[in-house]
């Protein structure tokens, strides 16, 4: 689901008050100045310290009017035009300041902004933006991954409350969660998308258990969430009962596309670091290594061209075209292949892991090789992505054996 129903150019008439008449470049300069004078300083090593440091930074951004580039201003956002959102993303990436905790800003916030009640918006949005309250996602379940509409966590209505039972999994940063935005079943077990409700659940409520989920890399960036007779006020429901499914994929304008350029820039950096490493170790004397590096050089540029084309499609046509739908597949394959190649290129040294002193660059490539297994799984597997591209861009027919979508 894309588009806010208004043309891109319409934003341009009502920019930030501070710079009502400033040009894009003046806006960039003002933002850059702010980011450098208010820099949060070096990243603390202690995890608890790091959380406080991150929260403080986001509070600073909100309090000075530099947060929520795509959000309406009444909830603490900046309501920037698409062009300025890109500038914003570029400057944030350049400043290397910490990103938000949890996954609320990109996923549930647009849903609340578009479909929440006035009371919900007032209660939830600003504290989320400031980082005072960390929001995490409860969509996937052990039995509902690619086939998310088969989810089985139930919410039974009991007066002015729902009683929630079930289990969610793959909740990013789940152990930090204050609030959980969840898809739950309010219809019959067979109701699929027609029986799903969008519910906001207090992560500290009785009956909620959050356990870190150790993944194949050995760390635990995800969590499992268990609900055991958790009572949730009906006022925490977004939209109507059984009408939560279409809300789950809401985005604000084209904010995701505005981030695509940054992703391209950050992979450019990673590839440069790998090429430097290859040179340092004398590996570019090997024509096979060089040819692989050339392959990645092409792909990293193609990722950037693709991001540029998405942006230009949005600016000229109002919609991202085919370019945006292929970008995730391009990037996922790129980062997997790149990290695996780095390990291969290093030979036996490639498998030496931290804390070994001679682990190359503290084992980052090896860790990346493992970590990027998730690139083609999380947020929709590459297989599902390919179905989507084939069906929505190429208009190939649906699989008649699959349930209707």
């Amino acid at each position, binding site marked *: 689901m894309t588009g806010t129903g208004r043309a891109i150019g319409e934003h341009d008439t009502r920019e930030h008050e501070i710079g009502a008449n400033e040009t894009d470049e003046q806006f960039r300069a003002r933002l850059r100045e702010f980011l450098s004078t208010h820099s949060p300083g070096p990243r603390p090593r202690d995890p608890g310290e790091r959380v406080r440091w991150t929260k403080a930074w986001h509070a600073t951004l909100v309090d000075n009017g530099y947060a929520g580039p795509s959000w309406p201003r009444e909830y603490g956002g900046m309501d920037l035009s698409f062009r300025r959102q890109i500038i914003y993303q570029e400057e944030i990436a350049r400043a290397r300041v910490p990103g938000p905790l949890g996954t609320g800003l990109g996923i549930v916030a647009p849903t609340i902004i578009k479909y929440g009640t006035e009371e919900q918006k007032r209660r939830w949005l600003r504290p989320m933006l400031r980082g005072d309250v960390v929001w995490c996602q409860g969509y996937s379940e052990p039995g509902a991954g690619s086939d998310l509409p088969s989810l089985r966590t139930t919410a039974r209505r009991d007066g002015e409350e729902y009683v929630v039972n079930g289990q969610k999994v793959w909740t990013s940063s789940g152990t930090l969660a204050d609030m959980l935005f969840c898809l739950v079943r309010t219809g019959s077990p067979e109701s699929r998308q027609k029986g799903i409700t969008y519910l906001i659940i207090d992560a500290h409520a009785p009956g909620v258990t959050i356990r870190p989920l150790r993944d194949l890399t050995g760390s635990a960036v995800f969590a499992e969430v268990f609900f055991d007779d958790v009572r949730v006020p009906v006022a925490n429901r977004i939209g109507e009962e059984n009408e939560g499914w279409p809300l789950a994929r809401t985005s604000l304008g084209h904010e995701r596309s505005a981030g695509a350029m940054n992703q391209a820039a950050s992979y450019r950096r990673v590839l440069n670091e790998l090429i430097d490493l290859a*040179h340092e170790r004398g590996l570019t004397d090997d024509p096979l290594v060089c040819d692989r590096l*050339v392959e990645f050089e092409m792909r990293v540029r193609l990722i950037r061209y693709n991001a*540029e084309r998405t942006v230009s499609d949005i600016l*000229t046509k109002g919609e991202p075209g085919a*370019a945006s739908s292929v970008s995730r597949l391009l990037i996922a394959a790129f980062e997997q292949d790149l990290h695996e190649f780095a390990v291969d290129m290093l030979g036996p040294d490639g498998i030496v892991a931290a804390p070994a002193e001679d682990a190359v660059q503290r084992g980052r490539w090896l860790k990346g090789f493992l970590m990027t297994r998730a690139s083609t799984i999380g947020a929709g597997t590459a297989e599902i992505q390919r*179905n989507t*591209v084939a069906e929505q861009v190429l208009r190939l*027919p649906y699989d008649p054996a699959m349930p209707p979508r």
Partner: protein
Amino acid sequence: MDREHEELREVVRRYLAEKSDLSGMRKLVQTGRFRDEAVWSQLARQLMAQGIAVPESYGGAGYGPVELSIVLEEMGRSLVVSPYFATVALAGQLLTASADAAARQAWLPGIADGSVTATVAIGDATGEIAADAVTTVATRAPDGWRLTGRKRFVIDGTTADLLVVAALADGEPALFTVEGAAEGVRRAPLPNLDPTRPLATVELDGAAAHRLADDAADLLPRFADLAVTALAAEQAGGAAAALEMAVDYARVRVQFDRPIGSFQAIKHRCADLLLEVESARNAVHAAASLLAERDPEGSLAAALAAAWAGRAYTRVAKENIQIHGGIGFTWEHDAHFYLKRAKTSEMLLGTTGSHRARLGALAGIRGAR
């Protein structure tokens, strides 16, 4: 992309769909002709296509690589049998970039109005556009120069009115114009994989030539970028059309009581091919835009477009046949023409491998050359 560009694309696409589609291609191939006379003159008069990248002062439209790449993408889609590529994308762009005002005045108006066909012959043995691939020798004569050598892989070389030829003058590469009908020029078709685009071997035996007032070492790299980007545009268009052909068939071909396009084995393959095609088109657009702006990144982008579009086209053309199954293996079906054009184009004006090597060198990947 600009609205004007979209309109240009629409106009060319509509024209070719009506006047020069795949059935037209097949007729020309079967009768051994190198162009459809009516199409050639309508392209020149109605669409001003031959003059698209020729300066207005020589009767052209005064556009550049971006607009040319749009026309070529469309021609690549329809596999147009025509000396357009050789005349406009090769000789036309080379002469436009030349500093030789007399040569520009002599040839560009004819190219722009469609009265002249032309081509280039640079690398002797391979057709690569590189100064170090030139072996033909130029010697001085009282009234100009005489060229001796053997140029292979000359696109539309048997019919071109004009050849722009690279030769060594006093050991240094230089560029010359040679008239196709001149004495000492022997031209023979070079039988090859692609029936839709004639290639020739041109024997020069003391052929009279005019030397262009250019430093070939300067001009050739710029021209190489323009030429391989133009070819990549054609390749990207062909790849897009071959994918459309596959997808159209997968939608309607029923097996096991369902369209084969509803099977993931087909669907996923098509999605992967779309990635190839979109990447190729993006790369061409980036290269053409950077070259038009004379951005220093242009050479690298041109090498990338050439390397990617060539390989992508061949991959899509192969998969198109596979998705069609048995019918795709018949002569009667058009799928094979895309494969033949694709694989052949990968070898023209440099190979996928040579473009990759150039890209590596330009990107600072040491040892990549």
